[in-house]
């Protein structure tokens, strides 16, 4: 696969480490308690289709990216710096 790195262009996915659903950006407040954290840590939409997900450019610039990818076709629809997504509040 090729990941369209927003700063570096197309890079082979082998340079990246995958984490999972980009919902992991939305870490709950401690007030959410165990139940809130259990949802965050364990439950996934796991869609067959468009999926926003986190990739780490471990063998590259060490950026975490939010990649939008179709899990049925592997087509990639876009990639953003996770930091920008988080700061922009669009996670």
């Amino acid at each position, binding site marked *: 696969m090729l990941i369209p790195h927003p700063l570096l262009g197309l890079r082979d996915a082998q340079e990246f480490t995958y*984490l999972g659903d980009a919902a992991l950006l939305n870490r709950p407040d401690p007030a959410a308690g165990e139940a809130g954290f259990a949802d965050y*840590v364990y439950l*996934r939409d796991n869609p067959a289709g468009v*999926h926003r997900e986190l990739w780490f450019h471990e063998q590259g610039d060490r950026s975490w990216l939010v990649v939008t990818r179709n899990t049925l076709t592997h087509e990639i629809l876009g990639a953003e710096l996770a930091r920008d997504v988080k700061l922009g509040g669009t996670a």
Partner: protein
Amino acid sequence: MGFSGFRVIKEALTGHKGWGPLWRDPAPRAQYDIVIVGGGGHGLATAYFLAKLYGRHRVAVLEKGWLGGGNIGRNTTIIRSNYLLPGNQPFYELSMQHWERQEQDLNFNSMVSQRGIINLIHSDAQRDSFRRRGNSMMLTGAGARLLDRDELRQMVPFLNYDNARFPIKGGLMQTRAGTARHDGVAWGYARAADQMGVDIIQNCEVTGFRIEGGQVRGVETSRGYIGAGKVGVAVAGSSGRVMAMAGLRLPIESHVLQAFVTEGLKPVIPGVITFGAGHFYISQSDKGGLVFGGDIDGYNSYAQRGNLPVIEDVAEGGMALMPMIGRARLLRSWGGLMDMSMDGSPIIDRTPVEGLYFNGGWCYGGFKATPASGHVFAHLLATDTPHDTATAFRLDRFARGHLIDERGAGAQPNLH
């Protein structure tokens, strides 16, 4: 009519005219006591055990494609009961005991071949952790042997003992482990269940659940509505998709695991060998193909196919472990859809929807579990209580913190 060597001879002499369908293709009835969603190994085994052990015959298995077309027909056929944790090991040992009488129980030769599995040891620390695991196996009667380097070398002389990046220091062996013919398992269960009256309905895709007042009433399908007293879902990699139709989110991600087979070769590999340090495991099929695999690709996928880096990684592992396989050729590679759970262990439980039961989260280990999974899921569906060997496979264990994490990898499915 039963299968036997005698019958094969008789049919051969009379032009094979007497062989009938292995199973019927019935039209779906309006209502069943129990509907199983998923005509893979686990679904078919569940139906078989419902009929065989629990006297439930008004049972249908709904399969969206052709029966046995999912992971049961695309795995690397390994059977073993070499687990560490008490939540897992008795269950897999139950499965192993079923495997040992599979042919006789089903009157179908699924070619269970107990030629052993060896997990290679590369360091003292790994030997310690395998000793802990081997003792769990001993304590459940599964049996285990800790092999030193010399014993191992006698058994599998062709490994790279002398110039390895990860030196081979021994192995943990389960002699009762081995392989079975994957398609044969699906067909064996399908035929036996069908003979006991279970309706196996192929090309019937479930498109929704009918839930009234928190109670499941039946399923909408591509072949119309089918009423059901209870619905059991056993759809492996499609778990997320199917359970979402009942409004449930799961601690599961779907991932792709690739598997590989070489051209046919005369016998070389005596049993199953797994090389954890190099992410490679291998056995040889009855037809002579070397069947091997490695890690999952590592990203969420429903595509049933993988990519080159893992293929190269697996082949590298193979070459590093046994450089004599270099001139064998990869014939075919394919991908299966793995229902990777958050702690690497399965879920067999009731759900918040009354009458809806779930069986999934098998990661890449579903094949070996097929008989026990069918047995305990049937038990749950029939009795509403978990089977003794499956009490830990609860859905709420994640929220409550009772994880069954063999690898200690935490809530990241692609690390299990």
